[in-house]
């Protein structure tokens, strides 16, 4: 049984990264038609021929083959975690077998993919990508790839806050579970879960370059260490107990996905057989690693049986442009007074807490986007202050979710943000006017010139 180790806490003289680089270098020499090649493995996650990162891909498999086996990654559904577990395990097995063939190790179990625990607050280096991925900064280094952001990660973006979520499955379109919504396997559906949002999406965006786009992310060698950590966090979440458990549902457990083994043979993997890491292929465990989970106030105010109600929304599709943007959520005062039954929550009622969410729908666009900071009711000066900040939005997968394809309709991404605490504060303030709610979106990095982002609508649900 192999053990996956923390890349920042590898024992002295450990060769995990050195062997990883040798394996990646060998995989890069193989043609994209070979399932054991780096190109093929990356394309199973996502492929877009016109993207610059795929410029040297060479000869491609047949169209029908690509339709069946490429662009298969699962996001925005409860299959996100199991699909990626299978994917990483098969990649690890292929790479280990390449190392066996090259005479670098004796058996497949002698090498395991390390994980990058960027959330380890005890380690000041944790937020930094291991130097082996950065130097030398050219093609002679198989672990290097162009256009990564530097420095890579922001501490808040790797918070493990989402491990506080108890249910695996999303409760509805807005209230997220840990694992995602009950959806059919789809490359980019709208039912993403807490784990997928943070740290998964945010780390992809923070690293940037190939990692910021699902159709190229598998080409960056750091991708596999990042996903190894995401896979570890799934197990960490289960180990926390207190009601955390995987879905006990046939539709989940019986779902099958097809991958390739080292010998080029197809391997059909079933979700129920990968729920325990020791059952996945030859099995693996994770080295103990510090994973601090920030405490979070538990708010459960709206009964589960009562759906959240929409109480305000923006009017038209908004182009986010290259800088910060304020968007009004309108609902006329006359309507508020006339519809007290459904809109009473917008009144100033200091004694009553309310569950409140912002929902961003039909987010479409193209290019690589930064993470956006979201503020509610910023002061008249316009700039967002930390008191008004309700969270961040990652738009990982924007390009792919905005393009009609065999996998999705092209309607874009949807995201939700819990703003309950700020909403309660705002309602108690003297100048509270529910008819004048505004949301400000501020990019955390410079928006590239060829990037476009549009938001179909922002709505407030209580």
């Amino acid at each position, binding site marked *: 049984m192999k053990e996956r180790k923390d890349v920042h806490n590898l024992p002295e003289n450990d060769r995990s990264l050195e062997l990883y680089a040798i394996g990646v270098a060998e995989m890069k020499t193989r043609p994209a038609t070979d399932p054991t090649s780096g190109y093929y493995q990356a394309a199973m996650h996502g492929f877009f021929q016109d993207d610059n990162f795929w410029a040297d891909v060479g000869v491609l498999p047949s169209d029908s083959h690509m339709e069946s086996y490429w662009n298969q990654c699962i996001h925005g559904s409860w299959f996100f975690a199991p699909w990626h577990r299978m994917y990483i395990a098969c990649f690890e097995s292929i790479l280990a077998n390449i190392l066996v063939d090259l005479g670098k190790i004796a058996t497949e179990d002698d090498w395991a993919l390390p994980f990058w625990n960027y959330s380890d607050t005890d380690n000041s280096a944790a937020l930094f990508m291991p130097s082996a991925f950065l130097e030398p900064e050219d093609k002679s280094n198989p672990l290097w790839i162009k256009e990564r952001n530097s420095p890579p990660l922001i501490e808040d973006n790797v918070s493990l806050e989402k491990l506080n979520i108890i249910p695996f499955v999303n409760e509805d379109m807005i209230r997220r579970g840990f694992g995602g919504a009950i959806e059919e396997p789809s490359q980019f559906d709208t039912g993403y879960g807490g784990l997928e949002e943070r740290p998964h999406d945010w780390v992809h965006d923070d690293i940037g370059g190939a990692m910021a786009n699902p159709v190229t992310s598998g080409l960056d060698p750091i991708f596999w260490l990042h996903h190894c950590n995401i896979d570890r966090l799934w197990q960490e979440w289960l180990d926390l107990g207190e009601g955390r458990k995987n879905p006990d549902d046939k539709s989940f457990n019986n779902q099958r996905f097809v991958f390739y083994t080292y010998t080029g043979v197809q391997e059909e993997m079933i979700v129920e057989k990968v729920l325990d890491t020791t059952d996945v292929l030859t099995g693996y465990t994770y080295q103990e690693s510090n994973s601090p989970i920030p405490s979070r106030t538990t708010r459960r105010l709206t009964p589960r049986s009562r759906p959240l109600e929409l109480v305000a929304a923006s009017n038209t599709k908004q182009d986010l442009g290259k800088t910060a943007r304020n968007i009004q959520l309108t609902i006329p005062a006359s309507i508020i007074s006339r519809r007290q039954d459904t809109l009473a929550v917008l009144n100033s009622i200091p004694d009553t807490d309310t569950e409140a969410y912002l929902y961003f729908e039909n987010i479409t666009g193209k290019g690589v986007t930064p993470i956006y900071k979201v503020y509610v009711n910023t002061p008249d000066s316009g700039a967002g202050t930390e008191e008004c900040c309700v969270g961040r939005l990652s738009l990982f997968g924007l390009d792919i979710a905005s393009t009609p394809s065999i*996998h999705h309709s092209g309607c874009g991404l949807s995201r939700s943000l819990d703003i309950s605490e700020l909403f309660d504060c705002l309602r108690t303030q003297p100048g509270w006017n529910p008819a004048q709610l505004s949301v400000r979106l501020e990019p955390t990095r410079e928006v590239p010139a060829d990037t476009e982002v549009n938001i179909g609508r922002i709505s407030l649900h209580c």
Partner: protein
Amino acid sequence: MNRSTSLNLFCQSIDWQQLPRYLLRTPVGRLWTTSGLIWLWLLTDSLLLQDAHQHHLETMTAIQSISTQVKHWVMMLIAMMFPLLALQVNHIVFAMPGFRRFRSILIYLFGYSLLWLLFLAAVLGLQAIAASLSIDTSIYPLLGVGCFILVTILIWSKNHPVIMASCSATMSLGIMGWRADIDCVKYGLKTAKNCIRSCWLPMLALILTNHAIGLMFLVTLALWYERYFLSHISKQMSIIWMLLACLSVVMI
């Protein structure tokens, strides 16, 4: 891909004890109930009033004939296509404040039906041209069979899964005033455009085979199965459409 996922999810999502409540109290349930009632009406109409209809058809004027066709077409739409709109209706329920939901759904369905009526107008226009060219109308049922065969072939086209994926498209809707109403009409038109892209051939086949109720019912089941139980890349429907082509040959 496991094709039983949708079926399992669907069956598990039904609380059979709550079914009557679901059918009467929820927007999607009401839509399905309405479709069910239209099916009953169509069945009764075809079983009991067939002779009377035949006599009526022979004596009616051109305008009466068009109005009858439009009426039948609207019935067909409600019976066959409205049950496929569960996702879109649920989207409106989610995206609209409670006090505007019912109105928004009705406006959406109006927009949806409008484009399908234009489709019917185009077909009637072509039939009128055919009549003016003295083309024998007895070939229409054969053309209907041809439509089923063509859809069987088109399932294998590269574009078919993309068209099927577009069926689940949603749209952002305004929540107040005329903008909300216009958005609902636009959403209806957008859905209808996607539906026509994916379903125009079977629907045309039904027009050309004179709305045979048995065939209508089987086509409805096929469309339901395709929409709710199959993945976009499935080619299974080509077998079903071919079977329906064979069946329609027997029926004519």
